[in-house]
């Protein structure tokens, strides 16, 4: 370990620190200047779905109930066109040991750290994932450090993250609480270097393989009760792991025709690294502040190659407003008796609108819930919002302005989804790919094929867009 703990010095050692802390040599998967063998990265990890299931069974992870939201379906049908309004189901992931699907994501990672003899695990996360890693580490007898972005320069903690601090400490983890800024990654590298712990990254193949059981289970559960696969699965989308893992699980179950819909809370206008904006987001995850950058360039994570590559799997990408998610959260509690969320209910809010596009005999699955409690609750978020000078009102959710006013719908008919133009997302991805090219490097055939797979398009689409970018000087 080097003595120089300065920002530049630590960042210069990042490749080596990451390699040692995850024990995977990502270089061996490179097949071009940008391309890498994505499927081999998973295959080499050496766990099939059954093996993942066995690991998760030992800690009570997964096998969560699938609940039909009959009252919400009925409510949606009151505003849908005649004959429209799919049956809505929810996968009650809050029933996992630490209260969210993140237990699936942490399980294999912690298991692998234990198997390989690491003394502990560390994770950079302000969300449910921290509690999940801490919970899994407790059971495995490993030490655990969670690094959070937790408070602003006035010392005001985001209440949802404060709850996660408490949960992680309850599981016996050391919690490093940091103020706002991307230097969290720098401090996380220092922790990894200091401890030699396993990097229980959100974005390793272990994390994504752990989520595949979610998609697989829900496909089987729907098949068992309706003798068919779901028509659509709506997934709350942030860093891309939820979409990627769930979609891969659905495909492994044979649900190849199920529409994969990613849904994020629209936080446009707020800067994710801004100290001023930090406590004005009212959401700590499931929002566009993560989903836009990660969908258009996944390799901005704490591992060299991100195993969460959502653009490969999504059929559709929609956004909903903050007020719509709070409304859906309230309805879920009062009509279905499920007090959950709030961030995980992003996909539920989207499902209110999406179900209306399908016939009544169709099935739409909202693929997660998360636990709720002090701080991690619409009341805590809206009280903080009011304290920060944000106006909270009933009205048309189209008038919701992130960081300025939160508009809770007056009627269920007002809930709509906004489409994110996937062609724009794909072009944006390709622009980022070109920007990531090393100086003077040229794309080979493998790279073009890789970019086609990444954007779920064809090599001719990729070539056409790249030509256009060159011609227009981008």
């Amino acid at each position, binding site marked *: 370990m080097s003595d120089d703990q300065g920002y530049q010095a630590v960042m210069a050692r990042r490749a080596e620190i990451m390699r040692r802390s995850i024990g995977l040599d990502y270089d061996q998967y490179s097949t071009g200047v940008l391309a890498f063998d994505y499927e081999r990265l998973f295959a080499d990890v050496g766990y099939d779905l059954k093996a993942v299931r066995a690991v998760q069974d030992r800690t009570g992870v997964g096998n969560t109930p699938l609940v039909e939201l009959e009252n919400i379906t009925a409510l949606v049908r009151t505003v849908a066109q005649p004959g429209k309004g799919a049956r809505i189901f929810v996968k009650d992931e809050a029933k996992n040991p630490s209260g969210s699907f993140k237990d699936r994501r942490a399980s294999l990672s912690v298991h692998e750290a234990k198997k390989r003899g690491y003394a502990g695990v560390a994770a950079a996360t302000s969300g449910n994932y921290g509690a999940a890693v801490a919970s899994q580490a407790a059971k495995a007898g490993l030490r655990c450090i969670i690094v959070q972005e937790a408070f602003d320069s006035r010392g005001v903690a985001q209440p949802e993250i404060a709850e996660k601090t408490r949960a992680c400490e309850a599981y016996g983890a050391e919690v490093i609480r940091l103020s706002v800024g991307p230097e969290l990654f720098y401090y996380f590298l220092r922790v990894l270097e200091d401890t030699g712990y396993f990097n229980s990254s959100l974005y390793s193949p272990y994390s994504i393989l752990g989520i595949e059981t979610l998609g697989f289970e829900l496909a089987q559960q729907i098949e068992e009760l309706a003798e068919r696969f779901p028509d659509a699965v709506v997934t709350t989308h942030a860093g891309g792991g939820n979409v990627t893992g769930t979609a891969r699980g659905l495909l492994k179950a044979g649900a190849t025709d199920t529409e994969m819909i990613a849904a994020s809370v629209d936080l446009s206008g707020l800067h994710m690294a801004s100290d001023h904006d930090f406590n004005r987001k009212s959401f700590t995850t499931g929002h566009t502040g993560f989903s836009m950058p990660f969908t258009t360039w996944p390799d901005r994570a704490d591992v060299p190659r991100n195993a969460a590559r959502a653009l490969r799997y999504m059929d559709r990408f929609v956004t909903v407003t903050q007020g719509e998610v709070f409304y859906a959260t309230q309805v879920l509690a009062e009509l279905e008796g499920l007090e959950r969320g709030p961030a995980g209910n992003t996909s539920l809010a989207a499902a209110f609108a999406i179900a209306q596009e399908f016939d009544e005999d169709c099935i739409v699955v909202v693929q997660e819930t998360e636990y709720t409690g002090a701080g991690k609750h619409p009341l*805590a978020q809206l009280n903080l919002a009011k304290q920060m000078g944000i106006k909270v009102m009933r009205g048309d959710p189209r008038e919701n302005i992130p960081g300025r006013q939160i508009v809770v719908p007056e*009627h269920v008919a007002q809930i709509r989804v906004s489409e994110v133009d996937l062609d724009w997302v794909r072009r944006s991805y390709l622009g980022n790919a070109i920007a990531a090219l090393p100086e003077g490097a040229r794309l080979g055939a493998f790279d073009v094929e890789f970019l086609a797979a990444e954007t779920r398009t064809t090599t001719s689409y990729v070539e056409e867009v790249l030509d256009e970018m060159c011609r227009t000087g981008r």
Partner: protein
Amino acid sequence: MVRREKKGTWVEIHSIILPSGERAPQVPEDTRGVAFEMRVKGFLVEAATVGEEAEIATSAGRRLRGVLDAVNPAYTHSFGPPIPELSAIGGEVRAMLRDRGRFR
């Protein structure tokens, strides 16, 4: 008299990781203008006084140094008062379903 906190007390320390002039180049202006700070909890390794340098042993067994900030710090996050903008929603949606015979 200055109160000394006993060795072994559960506390929180605070430290500046990067002062405002040394933030990462990509951070926005408002963030650049403030320090990058850390807070972490652990057990005091030796008796110490609030506001002064102290060493803690964390739950992961690490030794970390910083300014002693709080003794047995409380978890203060809560729900707060009910939000009027949410309070009426349940009644509204139940009324919509009452007409369909689903709710009483």
